Each structure stands twice: as C-alpha cells, then as structure tokens.
C-alpha cells in the first residue's frame, strides 16, 4: 500500500511553494527527491528557514490534525513529492498501528532536529553551526541512500544557507572559506564534499543521538 502511495509523484519546480502559510491543504506531502524547506517570511522581507526536508521526510504530517499551516514549505531548488490525501493518513494512523508509530517517530525526530538547530543557533559559533548542519545532512541523506560516504548533492544557494543559519550571506561566504582553508569541506558544482568526516564531526561536536536512528532495543517490535 505504501508503495502504491509513493507511485504518484509530482515535480515541484524551483522557487515554487509546496504549501503556503495559512493554507489548509487536503494532502500531506512526502519528499521523494531533492530538498524542500520549512520557512517563515517576516514583514520586512527577512526569511528564516527552520528545517531542511530530504527524501523520506513528510512536509506537513501534522496538517492531518491541525487546521492550517503556521509556516510555508517551499523549494528554492526543485524537488519531487508525492501527495497523500489527508483521509489516507487518517486511515493509516487509525488502522495500522505500526505505521502510526512510524509517523509518530518521524514527528518526534523532526522535533529533536528542531531542538538541535535551536542549540546550534543559540550557542554554537557560525563555523561550528555550519559544520554541524553538514554532518547532520550527511547522516540523514546516507540513511535514505542519497549520500555516499563523504559527499552529497547540495543544490541550495549561499543565501539559502544564510537564512538557514540565521547569519548574513556575506558571513556564510566567509565561514565557507574558513572551513575550506582548514581542509574540512569543499562545496563545488552543487556537491558538498566532507574531506574528513570524523574531523568535521569532532570540530562541531556532532552527536547524532537527536536523529534517533536506532530503535529502542527492548522493544515494541511486536507492533
């Protein structure tokens, strides 16, 4: 059944919103290829990106429960999504406990990631914050088979990265050159390569525990 759901993909072109703030969509979107992001626009035109969504991530699972979107989801880079009707999500969560549990897990992981981003933004220096994001994306993309051992497609712009980290684009350019000068990363032709994964992880104190990639050992595997 899940396979059937994922068969009806559609392409979202670059700079197109998947859902806008205030909308009440009838479908839940699942990213199949590429990147999407959660963002908010302020009245002065500033933008904050609060999450990067990679293949396998739900854009708006909670909309099956909540009334309307409190933020927008877009892709500055183009991505492929599948639309799952709200009624299907309701059916899955009601009648299929293992799937309901998986969706719950996905939501909790999103929250864990958001907490880590908050820590990054509040307490880590911009160079470590950026390094931490790169480590996170490597691990998340490896989990879904979209990264090799030390590199992944990273089509976003420096300006997008600035809005993700909450610093100016000029500073992003500066930090990138710092990381490059330390032989930590190379970002060229929309591909990010980490030159020494363990060294980059140590540099930013990366601990992937918040991604909850391992299941509880004691159980509930019967579900």
């Amino acid at each position, binding site marked *: 059944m899940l396979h059937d759901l994922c068969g009806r993909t559609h392409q979202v072109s670059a700079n197109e919103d998947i859902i806008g703030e205030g909308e009440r969509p009838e479908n839940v979107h699942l990213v199949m290829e590429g990147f999407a992001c959660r963002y908010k626009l302020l009245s002065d035109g500033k933008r904050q990106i609060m999450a990067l969504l990679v293949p396998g991530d739900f854009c708006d699972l909670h909309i099956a429960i909540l009334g309307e979107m409190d933020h927008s989801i877009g892709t500055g880079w183009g991505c492929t999504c599948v639309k799952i009707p709200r009624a299907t999500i309701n059916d899955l969560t009601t009648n299929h406990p293992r799937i309901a549990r998986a969706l719950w897990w996905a939501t909790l992981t999103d929250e864990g990631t958001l907490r880590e981003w908050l820590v990054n933004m509040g307490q880590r*220096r*911009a160079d470590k914050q950026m390094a931490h994001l790169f480590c996170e994306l490597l691990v998340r993309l490896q989990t879904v088979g979209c990264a090799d051992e030390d590199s992944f497609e990273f089509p976003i712009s420096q300006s997008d990265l600035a809005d993700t980290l909450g610093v100016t684009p000029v500073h992003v350019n500066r930090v990138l*050159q*710092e990381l490059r000068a330390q032989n930590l990363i190379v970002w060229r032709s929309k591909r990010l390569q980490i030159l020494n994964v363990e060294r980059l992880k140590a540099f930013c104190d990366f601990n992937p525990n918040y991604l909850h990639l391992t299941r509880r050992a004691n159980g509930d595997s019967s579900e």
Partner: protein
Amino acid sequence: MPLYFIDTDDDVLTVYDDQGQDLPGPKVARDMAHLVLPDMARQKLPDSDRRTFKASVRDESGTVLYVATLTLVGEWKVEPPAS
C-alpha cells in the same frame, strides 16, 4: 541589479568575496557590510583586547566604494590577571 562584492577581514583572515551579491544599489551594499560585522565579532570574541573587523564594498569594476570598521578596544583598569 548590479553586483557588489563585500570583502571582510578580522585581523586573522581576509576573505575576498568571490560570489558577489545582486543588490539594488550602493546603500543596500553598505547595509550588508554593516550587518556582517556583528556576525564576525560574535564568531571571534572573546579573544584579545584589540581587534578590528572590516567589511568593504567593491563594485563590478573593482572600485572600493565603502569601508566599515568595527573596533574592539578592551582595557584593564587594574593589574591584568595572570592567565
């Protein structure tokens, strides 16, 4: 929109802007130069008692249009504590 380049220096690392920014005019470029200074200071401080952060705006022809400088001057009013 014209392209402006914002070069930065924090006394340790000089970064030559190789990307450039599409901006409506030199005043917005000046604002960008101002805005990067607190980002740079946040990343570097605390450090020594003297540091200068600099951001300069260059146009496409290479002419430097504007230079913004943020200077930290710290001074002990007692005998400096042994490190």
